[in-house]
């Protein structure tokens, strides 16, 4: 049975479109679930409803089968970490961490030992007497984490906790947070707009767009089987190739489609998605799944090949990003290891990929719009 449930939760701020619509989620005890989505997609609003800062306009929230929708924040036993750390500036590190314990009426001795433990967990023993302003951003966030877990809350909420930190520190804290979370077995809701962060940390990812949850799944299922164009564009890089359904053969596990691309022989693709014959569709292919053949070779039966002209090669360290233009004018991005680049701009090539790496989606949205939103 799930531990934390959001049941058809909705929030409309005064006189505007709903900020969060029909959000239903079932979260297991000890699970690490990430809310991923562009800014303004309703992640903070949803988290604030779980924390109790905002009352849902409709729907309810349950923890362990109990309705907590109307329970005030201080009675929810939830821990929370914000992007701006939100440490109490007039209290020392130790007093900050002791605060939730004091509010729970714990004895002085217990408070001291528990706060000491929490400081040790976040690697800040010896910093107890400093004031927050005397700490770096990363240290402040560690204190905020210690403060949020010191009373062993049932649920931990984190709203872009690493958003204000630099890359290296972020990578380290990602691992540390994940480790603490796993050791304490604490049910965690984590908000980020960084897909890389979501993919590395989460047990499950819940992708938000325009106030709605558009896909929920494990990191690998989100990345490998995006269920719509938005997710495919937001999580990782994607090429969206327009095509048309020629024939469909129903079967199990999925349907077999024959697709027509401009400038290519028909391509056979397996998909669980249901598309009518003759409809327009989008084939999603990840840049790292495409390889470039300088000369034409007959594609294998399980491969697809499209003619293209190289426009640009962008060096990115370990890999290079290749921009190739199809006859239709569409640009396709290919990711290849930098050391194997033997190509030059304006060269005619063939782009080849295995058909099982294709994700087929209905063409209901202009992919450009999605890519812009993702950026």
């Amino acid at each position: 049975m799930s531990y934390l449930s959001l049941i058809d939760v909705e929030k409309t701020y005064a006189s505007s479109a709903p900020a969060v619509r029909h959000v239903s989620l079932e979260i297991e005890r000890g699970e690490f679930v990430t809310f991923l989505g562009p800014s303004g997609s309703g992640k903070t609003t949803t988290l604030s409803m779980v924390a109790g800062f905002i009352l849902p306009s409709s729907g309810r929230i349950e923890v362990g089968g109990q309705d907590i929708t109307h329970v005030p924040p201080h009675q929810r036993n939830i821990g929370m970490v914000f992007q701006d750390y939100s440490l109490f500036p007039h209290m020392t590190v130790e007093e900050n961490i002791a605060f939730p314990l004091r509010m729970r009426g714990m004895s002085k001795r217990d408070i001291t030992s528990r706060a000491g433990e929490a400081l040790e967990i976040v690697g800040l023993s010896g910093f107890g007497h400093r004031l927050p302003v005397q700490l770096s951003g990363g240290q402040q966030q560690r204190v905020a984490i210690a403060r949020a877990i010191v009373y062993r809350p049932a649920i931990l909420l984190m709203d872009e906790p690493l958003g204000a930190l630099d890359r290296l520190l972020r990578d380290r804290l990602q691992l540390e947070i994940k480790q603490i979370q796993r050791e304490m077995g604490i049910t965690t809701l984590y908000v980020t707009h960084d897909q890389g962060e979501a993919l590395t940390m989460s047990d499950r990812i819940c992708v938000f767009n325009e106030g709605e949850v558009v896909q929920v799944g494990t990191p690998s299922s989100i990345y490998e089987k995006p269920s719509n164009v938005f997710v495919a564009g937001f999580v990782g890089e994607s090429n969206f190739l327009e095509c048309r359904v020629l024939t469909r053969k129903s079967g199990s596990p999925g349907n077999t489609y024959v697709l027509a691309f401009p400038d290519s022989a028909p391509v056979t693709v397996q998909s669980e998605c249901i598309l009518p014959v003759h409809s327009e569709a989008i084939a999603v292919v990840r840049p790292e799944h495409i390889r470039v053949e300088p000369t034409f070779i007959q594609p294998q039966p399980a491969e697809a090949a499209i003619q293209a002209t190289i426009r640009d090669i962008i060096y990115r360290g370990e890999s290079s990003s290749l921009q190739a233009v199809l006859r239709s004018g569409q640009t396709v991005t290919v990711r290849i290891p930098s050391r194997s680049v033997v190509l030059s701009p304006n060269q005619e090539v063939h782009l080849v990929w295995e058909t099982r790496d294709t994700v087929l989606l209905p063409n209901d949205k202009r992919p450009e719009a999605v890519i812009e939103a993702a950026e």
Partner: protein
Amino acid sequence: MLRKSSWLIAPCLAYMLVMYVTPALIMLYSPFQISVESGFTALGEALVEPSYQRVMMTTFRTALVVTVLAVLLGYPTAYYLSRLPSEKVGKYMLLIMFPLWTSLLVRTYAWIALLQDSGVINSTLMSANLISNPIRLLYNSGSVAIGMVQILLPYAIITMYSVMVGIKPRLSQTAQVLGASPTRAFWHIFLPLSLPGLSAACLLLFIMGLGFFVTPALLGGRRDMMVGTLIQQQVVLLGDWDSASLLSIMLLAATIILLFVYSRFARLENLVPASK
């Protein structure tokens, strides 16, 4: 860039030097004109002069009472304003500033009209047969306090607001998820963080209260004379500039000592709303 344009403050500086600093110094210098020793002797005598001491006590007591009242009244208002979204604060601020744009004399005489024996309050009470003789509402320390509080209140609110507005609402939210009820979040987080504003308002009002003249002169009685009134009498009625100067020195010294003590505990900049 900034250094080069510092001549911009020169006109104002020159004006203040000529029009404020010089006359103030001349005034303060007056008892020391004959000799420095005789000046200090006179100052020593003034300090132990019983009638001066009584006036000084009244002045300090009145300033204290007025400060406490105005800060108590102003704190909840400043708190409320500081929690409003910033775009909504403007119109409230206008309302708070408005009394400052009304002539001090008008406001003070209005109180006389209200409180005097034949004033609105007494005549209403008498016509309602609640009292048979007018109550003496005017010319006592109560009427002075009422008059001064309503003049000082805007300064109290603005000074406290400017510190409170810097306290992030997020902190109170955080305290609540951590297990503090809204009331406890206020006592543990907001109140301590607002103390610099509270103390600045207290100091500012107390200093302003010490030097008040018009309101205590018009609304106060002879027995509760404040030092401002006494100084005025020394000059206008008795032509005794030296005494007036000695009293001014005592007032100025009190102000400087208060500022000094405050600066040991908090930033003097808190006294100026614009500084952040």
